[in-house]
């Protein structure tokens, strides 16, 4: 059986750089930092007191009060971004909704909901007074559930959880379901909203986050010698993936084609990256093989690049191993330098960035670079500090998650 071709027909994003796809792209293209002091809670006693929040967010702009109250913030972001993608794709009219699925990614789910209900219980006398919406708001799959309920999509529906690889895994799963013929279109991507006391305190305890409170704007600086950890972000990125013949039959606009997905595991440590980078080598090789392309065909890699001392170097060494001499011809950039790290939402917004790079012929930069890291090969093009113009035929998006999960997704400029 021949696999079906799968194309991207809709995009959506709510990010620290902007709350729509055009606003997000404008931030990426111009190299804006999304970091600022935390406003979601009093962080004065925390080691890290800044993050990349979605700016000026008010749920009342998107939901009626009763509806919004029943969704954790990560689900609100999921519904907002997917609405944009669904409208962009024109997916509400003239399609068989039994054949449209939702496969979403979230690394944590409703962290704020869990935290608030637990605080509330701890403040009482031991009598349980849990809100009946506690569990349905908290569970990670309330995101994909709410998207399907709102739009009537009755196809395959679930959530993938693999920490910071979650939404890339969702995208690969969506690609697989469509190419196997189990759905004609799938709303996919991912969201996260972990800028809470528990989220910031927990990642601080892991010593994973930047503590550059005196210079928050430049704290996310992948591949810089002075990088000191990731900056927590929040938001959602959404894609509509669709069988090519289905998109063609209804005259949908096509942004790009998804041509491959690779998965692997480090099998090494629950949080530390394997310093040999073997799992990361494997995931990119798997993605290239699935896509049926050679390393030389790739123009741009949107890296995982979280700005941690260990992780950034391991990924770059792996890229050099997989791509050899061609590594010097690649554009490499980490858009996390601008958006911060959306954890389970990262693969969603970075897939959107990769597709827009193909569409516009512009590579979004790795901002905040000032000091070269002697451990990294200076002949590589990290797209430091300013966007670069380049015709992009093939873009690869890498994400890796705690647990040792690695996922690479490959998009190509669409040709008949």
């Amino acid at each position, binding site marked *: 059986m021949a696999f079906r071709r799968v194309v991207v027909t809709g995009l959506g994003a709510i990010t620290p750089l902007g709350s729509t796809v055009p606003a997000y792209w404008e931030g990426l293209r111009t190299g804006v930092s999304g970091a600022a002091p935390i406003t979601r809670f009093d962080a004065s006693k925390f080691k890290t007191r800044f993050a990349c929040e979605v700016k000026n967010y008010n749920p009342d702009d998107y939901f*009626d*009060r*009763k*509806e919004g109250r029943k969704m954790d913030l990560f689900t609100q972001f999921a519904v907002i971004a997917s609405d944009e993608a669904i409208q962009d794709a024109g997916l509400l009219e003239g399609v068989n909704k039994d054949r449209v699925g939702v496969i979403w990614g979230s690394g944590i789910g409703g962290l704020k909901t869990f935290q608030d209900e637990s605080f509330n219980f701890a403040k009482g006398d031991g009598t349980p*007074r849990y*809100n*009946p*919406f506690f569990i*349905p708001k908290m569970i990670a799959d309330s995101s994909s559930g709410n998207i399907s309920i709102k739009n009537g999509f009755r196809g395959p529906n679930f959530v993938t959880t693999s920490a910071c690889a979650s939404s890339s895994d969702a995208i690969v799963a969506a690609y697989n379901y469509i190419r196997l013929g189990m759905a004609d279109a799938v709303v996919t991507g991912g969201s996260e909203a972990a800028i809470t006391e528990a989220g910031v305190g927990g990642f601080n305890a892991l010593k994973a986050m930047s503590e550059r409170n005196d210079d928050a704007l430049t704290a996310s600086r992948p591949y810089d010698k002075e990088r000191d950890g990731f900056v927590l972000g929040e938001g959602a990125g959404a894609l509509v993936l669709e069988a090519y013949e289905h998109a063609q039959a209804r005259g949908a606009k096509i942004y790009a084609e998804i041509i491959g997905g690779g998965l692997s595991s480090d099998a090494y440590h629950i949080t530390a990256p394997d310093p040999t980078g073997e799992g990361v080598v494997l995931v990119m090789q798997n993605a290239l093989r699935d896509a049926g392309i050679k390393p030389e065909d790739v123009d741009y890699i949107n890296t995982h690049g979280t700005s941690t001392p260990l992780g950034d170097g391991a990924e770059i060494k792996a890229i050099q191993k997989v791509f050899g001499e061609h590594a010097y011809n690649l554009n490499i950039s980490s858009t996390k330098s601008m958006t911060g790290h959306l954890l389970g939402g990262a693969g969603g917004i970075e897939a959107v960035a990769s597709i827009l790079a193909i569409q516009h012929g512009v590579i979004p930069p790795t901002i905040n670079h000032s000091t070269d890291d002697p451990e990294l090969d200076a002949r590589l093009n990290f797209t430091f500090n300013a966007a670069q113009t380049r015709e992009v035929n093939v873009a690869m998006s890498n994400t890796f998650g705690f647990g040792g999960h690695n996922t690479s997704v490959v998009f190509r400029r669409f040709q008949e």
Partner: protein
Amino acid sequence: MSEIAEKVKAIIIDKLGVEASEVTPEASFTNDLGADSLDTVELIMEFEKEFNVSIPDDQAENIGTVGQAISYLEEHAK
């Protein structure tokens, strides 16, 4: 209208996102005010918290309208 009735109406308006004019004594939470089973559980919990009472499940089942909630709470509120 009693103080209890005012508070009950305010809770219903807040939790169910309905207009004050809809919250009549005869209005049924599920049939008229758009509540599902979870909304109803949440309403009962809010009444318990606001009026410092404990409403047993078998009695909560009999509170299906605005008027039934008000009379139950006028009788049992401390």
